[in-house]
Every structure is written in structure tokens, then in C-alpha cells.
């Protein structure tokens, strides 16, 4: 973790002032995120939370609490030409994409009411 912190200033910013339990929780959520066009998943999450006006932990918890079960997936199977897919439920949506290892990762989480 120390190496990650020195290589990624955004990871250090995210963990700043957090206790061990919060760091463990944040790390677990960050594993679910894709860097996309950002330099890292940490930078992506940092930027998302700032734009949407949430603390990072609150934003990540909201994304994590999104329940894919019972949501509508577009496309139903596979991915769009740009590699993305969306899970939609009520006013919330989760846009995902496959990472280089073939795991589905979060690109962004949004709520149309917020």
C-alpha cells in the first residue's frame, strides 16, 4: 500500500485523515472502479466526488449500494461499440466497462435527482 501511495498522489489524498477501517472500506470500493481516461481509478473517483459535491466515501458508498439485481441493463448482454454498458434503476445508473482482465468495472455512478 505504501508503494501505491507514493505512486499515486490521488490515493494519498483519498486516504488522508481516514482511519484503518475507512481505508480498508475505500480500498475495497476502489477495486471496483476503472481508471478509464484518468491516470488511475483513485483520480477518477476523486474527480467524480468533487464534481458531484460528495465526500469520496459517501460517493463510493452510494455507487456500492446500487443494486444491479432488478435493474435494467443496456445492452441486455455484452457491451456497446465503445465498450460500455449501463445498469439503470429508478433515478440511478451505473455505467460499466470491462477492464484489461475481462472484469466488469465501474466507470461512473449517477443519480438524476442529485
Amino acid at each position, binding site marked *: 500500500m505504501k508503494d501505491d501511495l507514493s505512486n499515486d498522489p490521488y490515493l494519498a489524498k483519498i486516504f488522508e485523515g481516514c482511519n484503518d477501517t475507512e481505508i480498508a472500506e475505500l480500498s475495497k470500493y476502489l477495486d471496483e472502479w476503472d481508471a*478509464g481516461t*484518468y491516470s488511475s481509478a483513485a483520480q477518477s473517483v476523486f474527480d467524480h466526488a468533487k464534481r458531484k459535491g460528495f465526500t469520496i466515501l459517501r460517493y463510493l458508498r452510494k455507487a456500492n449500494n446500487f443494486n444491479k439485481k432488478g435493474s435494467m441493463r443496456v445492452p441486455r448482454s455484452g457491451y456497446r461499440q465503445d465498450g*460500455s454498458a449501463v445498469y439503470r434503476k429508478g433515478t440511478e445508473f451505473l455505467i460499466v466497462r470491462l477492464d484489461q482482465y475481462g472484469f466488469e468495472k465501474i466507470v461512473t455512478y449517477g443519480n438524476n435527482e442529485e
Partner: protein
Amino acid sequence: MSKAQEKLAFYQDYILQLLEQLNINYQNTRLERQQISQKDVISKEGFTFLEELELLTVNIRGYACQIETTGPIGNEQQAIADLQRLSVFNNYVIIQLYSESRSRYPQIQTYISTLDYLRLLVLEYLQIQQNLRLISA
């Protein structure tokens, strides 16, 4: 520092300012986003207008944030090609709502225009950086 490098530093600073401005603009669109979410505007590939706009936002901001932190972007050529493709006006569902937004959704219109301006700035930054590299090679 050469003129081109000075220009890059200016662009970097300007990109940073625009990223901050877009955060404010985004938060100002809240009410209009709530109204738009009630409409059934779906793109050819099945995403709603707000989902398309969110994905576009993330893709463009990602490159801009890389410039904000590190300056040069790793895969420059790929980034240039991506940013050329990411024009907000390449997306039918966004064009459709953009023309309507002039009267109904002014905050959304401002947000879309500023986002596309950011895209163009990042693109120009990368092209200057690429030329600088070719000259020094």
C-alpha cells in the same frame, strides 16, 4: 522556456480553471437534469441523454485531469484520436436536446458548450505537445 512551452503552461492553467468551472456548471444543472430525466430521450445505442452526457463528461475530464496532474499524457496519439471522436456534437441524442436546451434548459446548454470547449483545449494542448516532441527529436 520556449514559446511553445510557455503556451503549454498557459493551456495547463486554463484547463485547470475550466475543470473547476465545469464543477460549478454541473451542480447548476441539477434542476434541469431532474426535468430531463422525466423525458424519454434515448440514443441509438440505448443510453439516455443524461447517461450519454455523463459518459462523455467522464471521458473528456479524464484526459483533462491527466494534464492537470502530470502534464504530458502517456498514449498521446490515442488520446488525440479519442478526443476528436468525443465531440459532443457527434452524439445524436445530445444534438437533439442541445437545440431544445436554448429555451428550456439554459444551464445544460452552458454545461455542454463548456465541456466541448474543454475537449478542444485538451486536444490543442496535446497537438502542441506532439509538435514540440517532433521538433526536439
